[in-house]
């Protein structure tokens, strides 16, 4: 019983990290129907950026993360405005290929700049701090902060989408980009802002990824798979669904590794397939898609 409870709690906490990986992906898909194959690499890029700010400029980790947020927003805005907007259109293939190429460029750029060595962000005592819940179950402070951040990000993005003029414009463009232009909305500028926000979220994901585990320039695509699965389990374009999807993967992986440590990754993928069989459009599909 205790084991089961522990598996669920640890799974939910791990799900927070996956939801954070996936939130930016979900946002971008929701607004511009772009599947960003470089999202995992952009998260890794953020982790390296934070690491560089800590080790070269000597910034404390929280401050480095705070600096990384606007920097990654600017990177996202510039990336979309200068490159990706050229490929966005009725055909979904060109942007897909473009982000695939971007993924390779980022990985090789990072290899060149930082070598293939495995790195880690250090959060000091916080890394091992935990809160005992009694009954032999304890929850780590870092995983808890990760989950809390994921929830805050998703609440924040939902507020943005449903309570602000910018959010209305995001939803209008997502519904019908050409009619949105007739409302005076400049889709391209809007897409750039969306990519900026997505990469600011990626910076948070990079922070928690780097604290939780070792990272090197090539781990992006593997992280992208989990993010994809979270988005699809949740239902394309639904942010709360993405959180739920992350948690489903997290619980499945934790349960898998409780049975046999080699089964962790496999269990996550099996859960993904099971959801696809039962609900092909995900748990919370948007009505209009």
């Amino acid at each position, binding site marked *: 019983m205790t084991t089961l409870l522990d598996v669920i709690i640890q799974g939910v906490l791990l799900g927070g990290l996956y939801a954070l990986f996936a939130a930016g992906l979900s946002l971008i898909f929701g607004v511009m129907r772009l599947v960003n194959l470089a999202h995992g690499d952009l998260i890794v890029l953020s982790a390296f950026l934070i690491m560089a700010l800590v080790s070269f400029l000597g910034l404390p980790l929280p401050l480095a993360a705070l600096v990384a947020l606007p920097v990654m927003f600017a990177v996202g805005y510039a990336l979309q405005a200068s490159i990706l907007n050229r490929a966005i259109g009725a055909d979904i293939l060109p942007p897909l290929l473009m982000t695939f190429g971007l993924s390779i460029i980022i990985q090789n750029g990072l290899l060149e700049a930082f070598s293939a060595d495995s790195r880690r962000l250090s959060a000091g005592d916080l890394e091992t701090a935990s809160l005992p819940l009694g009954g032999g179950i304890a929850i780590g402070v870092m995983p808890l902060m990760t989950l809390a951040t994921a929830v805050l990000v998703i609440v924040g993005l939902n507020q943005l989408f449903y309570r602000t003029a910018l959010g*209305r414009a995001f939803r*209008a463009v997502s*519904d019908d980009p050409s009619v949105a232009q007739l*409302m*005076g909305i400049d*889709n391209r500028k809007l897409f750039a802002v969306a990519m900026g926000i997505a990469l600011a979220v990626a910076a948070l994901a990079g922070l928690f990824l780097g604290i939780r585990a070792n990272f090197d320039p090539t781990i992006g695509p593997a992280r992208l798979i989990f993010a994809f699965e979270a988005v699809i389990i949740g239902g394309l374009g639904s942010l709360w669904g993405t959180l739920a999807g992350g948690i489903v993967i997290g619980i499945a992986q934790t349960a898998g590794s409780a049975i046999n440590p080699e089964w962790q990754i496999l269990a996550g993928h099996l859960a993904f397939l099971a959801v696809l069989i039962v609900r092909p459009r995900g748990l919370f599909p948007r009505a209009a898609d």
Partner: protein
Amino acid sequence: MALLSVENLDAFYGDFQALFGISAAVEPGETVAIIGSNGAGKSTFLKAITGMLGSARAAIRFEGEAIGGLPAPDVMKRGIAMVPEGRKLFPSLSVEENLLIGGYGRTGSGRWSLRTLYELFPILGERRNNPSMSLSGGQQQMVAIGRALMSNPKLLLCDEISLGLAPVVIRDIYAALPAVKAEGTSIVVVEQDIVQAMKVSDRVYCFSEGRMTLSGSPDALSREAIHSAYFGH
């Protein structure tokens, strides 16, 4: 000076030429009807004005400035608003959000706001929080018109606003146009319904197969002239 003047406008879909040397003008405060059968080029004409379809820069002038082929958002920000054919409301936005998006980033000053639109179309006030697609066709058309008015445009373009609606509903929709005119807003209505178009307009242009075949004031045009211009023979 005409608010909108179009001179010798050609428009293409790829290699297919859809408009041939169209010249037309809309004066401030004037209501112009564009009539013609299916495929005559009426909607293409509106697409060219809004920048959704490319054209020569100097072929279209708004308040004297050449706007042909500018990106749609740049055109609309100058004071043009569009009620697109088929209404094209944003399905994931509520009634009120659809209205609000019409005024996004545009600062035209004038009478129209949520409050005055709810006075013009009281039913929309009652349904303000409903999903836009839950409304009837006529009510959706009111939202589409309201959405366009939210930017307080100088020129309102209406593409087939009576299409697919019952006659009583069409009457209600058209009953709103005098309030728009009273603000000094120029209106272009594209219509297949000739009777309705003649009733509201100060001037009529008739298109056939991408060419303008007739223009004049509705009172001065004979039934026969319109008939032959409409059917192109």
